[in-house]
């Protein structure tokens, strides 16, 4: 188990991590989400003791990382890609790290097999593509057969096949009882991989919840109605106090009324209804809504789609 408790990290006058607390449990994939620059990588560096926290502490299985008796056997980590010397072969890189924690040399061949680098184990790692470098990073994390993993954007640079592979790998790690903290700025990927999510913005915790709960928060806020007479229905809904939006395909998006009350209203007015569906906001929308206030880097002008999303999300803040 990893426990972050009130972590603070400042770089000069910038507060990169601001009183952050969360937990990573065994057997659970915890997605670590936040916009670019929100402090995910810094937090992971604090967890591993690479950077010293200005306040708060991080415990791994009850100890500070620096006090772990065999760090690689307890926590496997991959921070930035390319945490290896370009002049050293993948095999020697892993072997050197294995020696430091008295991990048997045969484990090196096993993790190289596992990440699909067995064929290039003797090649200098500097010749690797971004995706291969990423796989070497994952092999490094798995080297000590650890019960906990900390992976910073492991999907970066992987091809679609690699991303599917990574997802299956992470799921199987959790199924074996390991705890995984995996950062991403893409919630779509996390929705498929993670059980829990920790969402941060500007170094602060925004939400610590399950993926299911995050979806549920925004489910049922809107109702899609399809009717042969959308104009009349829209008028009726509008006068009943709902906000109605016309979609290009002729359907209506109704906000502020449940499916039951929309159906009741249509029946009372004798308007035929062909479809009536509660709309779950996508996780992307939920995530963007959560992090909007704290996104540090975003374009000054939102495109039209963003505006529509924003309008559509009104009132969905929990």
């Amino acid at each position, binding site marked *: 188990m990893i426990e972050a408790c009130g972590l603070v990290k400042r770089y000069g006058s910038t507060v990169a991590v601001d009183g952050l607390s969360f937990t990573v449990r065994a057997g659970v994939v915890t997605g670590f989400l936040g916009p670019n620059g929100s402090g995910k990588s810094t937090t992971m*560096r604090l967890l*591993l*003791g*690479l*950077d*010293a926290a200005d306040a708060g502490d991080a415990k791994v299985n009850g100890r500070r*990382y*620096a006090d*772990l*008796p*065999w*760090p*690689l*056997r*307890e*926590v496997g*980590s991959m*921070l*930035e890609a*390319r*945490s*290896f*010397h*370009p*002049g*050293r*072969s993948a095999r*020697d*890189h892993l*072997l*050197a*790290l*294995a*020696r*430091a*924690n*008295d991990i048997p040399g045969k484990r090196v061949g096993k993790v190289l097999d*596992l990440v699909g680098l067995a064929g290039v184990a003797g090649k200098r790692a500097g010749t690797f593509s971004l995706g291969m470098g990423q796989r070497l990073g994952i092999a*490094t994390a*798995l080297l*000590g*057969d*650890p*019960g906990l993993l900390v992976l910073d954007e492991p999907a970066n640079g992987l091809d679609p096949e690699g991303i599917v592979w990574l997802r*299956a*790998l992470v799921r*199987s*790690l959790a199924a*074996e*009882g*390991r705890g995984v903290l995996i950062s991403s700025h893409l919630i779509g990927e996390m929705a498929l991989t993670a059980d829990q999510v920790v969402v941060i913005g500007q170094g602060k915790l925004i939400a610590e919840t399950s993926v299911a709960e995050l979806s549920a928060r925004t489910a049922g806020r809107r109702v899609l109605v399809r009717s042969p007479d959308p104009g009349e229905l829209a008028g009726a809904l509008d006068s009943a106090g709902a906000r109605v939006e016309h979609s290009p395909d002729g359907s209506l998006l109704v906000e502020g009324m449940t499916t039951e009350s929309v159906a009741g209203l249509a029946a009372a007015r004798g308007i035929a209804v062909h479809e009536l569906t509660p709309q779950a906001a996508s996780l992307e929308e939920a995530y963007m809504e959560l992090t909007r206030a704290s996104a540090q880097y975003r374009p000054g002008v939102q495109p039209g789609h963003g505006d529509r999303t924003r309008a559509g999300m009104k009132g969905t803040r929990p």
Partner: protein
Amino acid sequence: MTVSATATATIPPGRYRLVHVMRSEWTKLRSVRSVRWVLAAMVAGTVALGVTDCLVESSSWASMTAASRARFDPANISLAGLAFAPLAAGIAGVLVMSGEYGSGLIRSTLAAVPRRRLLLAAKAAVLTAVTLVLGEAAVFASFLAGQAVLAGRAPHATLAQPGALRAVALSGAYLALLALLGLGLGAAIRRSAGAVAAYAGLVLVLPYVLLALPGNPARFAPETMLASSVAAVRPQPHYLPPGWEGLALMAVYAAAALAAGGWLLSRRDA
């Protein structure tokens, strides 16, 4: 897909120790070309320069003045490569640390070995062992080859002569201390270019600056102590006497650099 052989990995008792980290550092040292080349250059350059100097000196012996002949130190001449070897030894030492920062390997290393002073100690131990063996090999080879060149054409030395063995053996050890100075600077400065520049400044440039000052403080500079005292059999005017003094002072310099490097390493964010 099963990642471990057993569902629950067993963690052995105890904890990682210096010996584990030394094995790790030895694996690193032998598996990167740059450091291997620099160390090979140290050995080859030492021997080549020593032999060349012996060739030059042996041909000029016949025309030397009596005063020059009185100062003639065949052991010291065959160790002329010590004008070059310190650069290679120091760069090797710098690279052992700065190579980790330049590549990002430091993140993987500190994840495996979060006790940073222990890491530096392991690096120092492995570097000392390697540079001591190679340094001794370089100076003994240089001495023996150089004396073979001098023999017959000019006075030459043997290891049995007073002071000769000491001069040769301590010169090899001195190279290990210079490598440690480089390691300390690498840990303190972290960037290869900056650390090599700082090392070259201390070892190669500083003596010339100090020579301009009264009282010849240059005799305490790392490179001059090596060439004019440690590697000498006959005392040279204005320099430390041949013997252990220079080696001891150099050990103090190396220890100071390592202490500073270790202090910064343990205090700074990686």
